[in-house]
């Protein structure tokens, strides 16, 4: 996360054990979730969009899915994850936007800084959500309701965005509460009432319960969380395995997961879906090079190096592969990442030569440091200096200010914005 570093600096060192005694009794966990985040950011930045159905994701007739839809659009039963074509059929009047990830990231960073001011125990979840552990903060901020109101007000004042906040004694309850309070609401589940709060809700609201699990629960006659809670645990475990135990505990309102402040990333990756499936090798290679450079830059920004390079390919038929290669020495050099990924790509295409829908490159096995200085072999060091300088130039003038020959052909294919390429489906995660 962009704001990870600032947060770490802001964090006060309160040992966990200070809160330990009250910890399991009545935790006050807040789940702050911004309402229709991407769409709302667009509406704030462009007041003309206010009050209109806005859909972020891309051109209505293009491939891809809805990333975010404003509440005005949701009135037409549009929702995130829906194919754009379908969204267009449901609401042809909606304003379809490509969206700009950098704008959302900036807005997110500002909000996370606001939240981090309330407690050191702040765990961002993705770009538009965060958990806060405010157990024992009542003397400082007043009741949970008051605190939530204050958080919402500050976010509103500083960013003109609205958030919904759920409060409960666990992450689970807080998250479900915030979803139910949407939009622009606050919902507190009083201590002791977790189970009765959850009971009438459909099982699909629980984390870890996807369409498949929901289906198998249905065959056992379980549709609500209450029914799940009353179901004998051993039977659940028999049919669902370890997952059965977990969701049974969740159904009873038991969730001991703690709010974990952000940890340094375990891996970094960038991927993109093509506008059209392709097998054009120079183009694949150019995209791979571009993505490798993005990954490399992110690695260096975090001051880390990676031992493992990962290539991800999704073919036109949605068959997806990932290929790993472990390097002898950790690297943060663009060209090493690219070279390794390119070799993996060549091998993969050799094994399965089909149109490619998505390509991605990532690095894992991250280490903080460990570059060996050498007497003469300066090729690695020189390359390192070059990467650093390129990073600096690009941070000021954009990616396209300075380009490798390899990626030049992207110029004819991809649109640019502020000197950066706009990828069709940028990776929103790490």
């Amino acid at each position, binding site marked *: 996360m962009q704001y990870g570093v600032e947060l770490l600096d802001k964090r006060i060192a309160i040992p966990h054990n200070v809160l330990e005694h009250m910890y399991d009794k009545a935790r006050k966990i807040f789940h702050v979730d911004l309402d229709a985040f991407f769409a709302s950011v667009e509406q704030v930045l462009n007041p003309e969009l206010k009050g209109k159905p806005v859909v972020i994701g891309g051109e209505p007739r293009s491939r891809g899915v809805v990333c975010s839809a404003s509440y005005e659009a949701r009135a037409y039963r549009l929702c995130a994850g829906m194919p754009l074509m379908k969204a267009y059929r449901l609401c042809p009047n909606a304003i379809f936007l490509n969206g700009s990830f950098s704008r959302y990231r900036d807005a997110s960073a500002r909000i996370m800084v606001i939240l981090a001011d309330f407690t050191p125990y702040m765990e961002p979840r993705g770009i538009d959500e965060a958990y806060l552990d405010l157990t024992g903060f009542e003397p400082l901020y007043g009741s949970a309701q008051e605190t939530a109101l204050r958080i919402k007000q500050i976010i509103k004042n500083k960013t003109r965005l609205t958030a919904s906040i759920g409060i409960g004694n666990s992450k689970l309850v807080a998250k479900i509460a915030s979803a139910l309070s949407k939009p622009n609401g606050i919902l507190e589940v009083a201590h002791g009432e977790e189970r009765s709060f959850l009971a009438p809700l459909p099982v699909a609201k629980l984390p870890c319960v996807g369409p498949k699990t929901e289906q198998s629960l249905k065959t056992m006659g379980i549709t609500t969380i209450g029914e799940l809670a009353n179901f004998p645990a051993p039977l659940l475990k028999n049919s669902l395995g370890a997952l059965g135990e977990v969701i049974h505990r969740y159904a009873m309102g038991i969730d001991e997961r703690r709010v974990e402040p952000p940890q340094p990333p375990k891996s970094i990756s960038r991927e993109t879906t093509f506008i059209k499936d392709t097998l054009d090798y120079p183009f694949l290679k150019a995209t791979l090079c571009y993505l490798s450079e993005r990954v490399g830059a992110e690695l260096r920004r975090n*001051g880390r190096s990676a031992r493992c390079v990962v290539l991800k390919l999704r073919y036109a038929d949605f068959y997806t592969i990932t290929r790993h290669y472990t390097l002898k020495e950790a690297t943060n050099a663009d060209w090493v990442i690219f070279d390794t990924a390119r070799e993996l790509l060549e091998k993969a295409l050799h094994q399965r030569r089909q149109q490619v829908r998505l390509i991605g490159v990532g690095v894992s096995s*991250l*280490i*903080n*440091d*460990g*570059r060996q*200085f*050498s*007497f003469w072999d300066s090729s690695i060091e020189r390359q390192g200096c070059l990467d650093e300088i390129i990073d600096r130039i690009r941070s000021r003038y954009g990616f396209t200010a300075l380009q490798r020959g390899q990626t030049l052909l992207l110029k004819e294919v991809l649109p640019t914005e502020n000197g950066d390429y706009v990828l069709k489906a940028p990776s929103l995660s790490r």
Partner: protein
Amino acid sequence: MKLSCSQVDLNKGLAIVGRAVATRTTLPITNNILLTADQSRLKLAATNLEIAITYWLGAKVEEEGAITIPARLLTDFVNSLPNEQINLTLSPRTRTLELKCARFEARINGEEAEEFPPIPSIEEGVATTIDPEALRLAIAQVVFAAATEETRPVLTGVHCQFYGDTLTLAAADGFRLAVHKAPLAQPVAEMTEVIIPARTLNELQRLIGDEEKPVEITINPNGSQVLFRLKDVEMASQLIQGAFPNYTQLIPQSYVTRAEIGLSDFLKATRTASIFAREGSAIVRLQITPGEELAPGKVVLSARAEEVGDNVGEVDAMVEGEEAKIAFNNKFLADVLSVLREDRVILETTNPSSPGLIRPVGTDNYVHVVMPMFVQW
């Protein structure tokens, strides 16, 4: 060819020359050992075209002659024989060598001796001698620093400078440099510099064993080959051609922090840290703190493996200069510390990204320079 010798001698000889037998080769005959019977000795020779080893053993020769025999077959067979007299008889017409020992016998088909690549014999050139123990120490303290990767061939060798009565060995793989000065038993007439493959010196060290006689070293006039002559063994080797980097400029001439540390403590702490370092990124962090009025100075060695664990160890040190932090590859540090013989060593550092210098206390014949690793403290 007809002779007899003892199984023990032949077995020993085959093991020695076997080190030079080619393993992967495009010249099949180099998989063989050349046997030559002349006067009262049996000569065994093998070569992989980079090095050649020749060994002489006493034998009762009835009939002179020569043949080459597949090394693996001969060695394994002789090794399995009882400790008794072996009779070797060659049938020149069929090129079959017959071996008889106690109640065992074998016939092995060989190839013409004339087909065997010539074994270099260097008679003239720069010649000198050196005490075997001095040579062995010199090799041990230097050879491990030579590069194993072939990207810069000269770095896979050890630079040897013969000057007056001193032999200076130096090896560097880009990350570390080891320089050892050894006394020659016999001064050389002119200054000579050659690059000997590290592999050759590793083999030489093995050959020296408990040799007591000075080792003779001869470099041929055009500087392409070197010959080491021991009591019963000769090893000839190709030399690496090319310019060795000027390493003297790599040796730091000043320091900011200097720590004198007990070698065994230092080595032990390094090995302990290595247990964790090797799980992670091979980094051992050294924190050198000068002593205060009553407290002695110390060096703190720490290592951590992300998501696995970490450790910290401390050794006493006499520290001069400022407090310092520097990180090294655990292997590089352990490598140098384990070849030193002295009780105490000196570590000199300038800053976290400049080379560290390690040398033993009480002798000035050895310096080791090692590049640090980049870490965030």
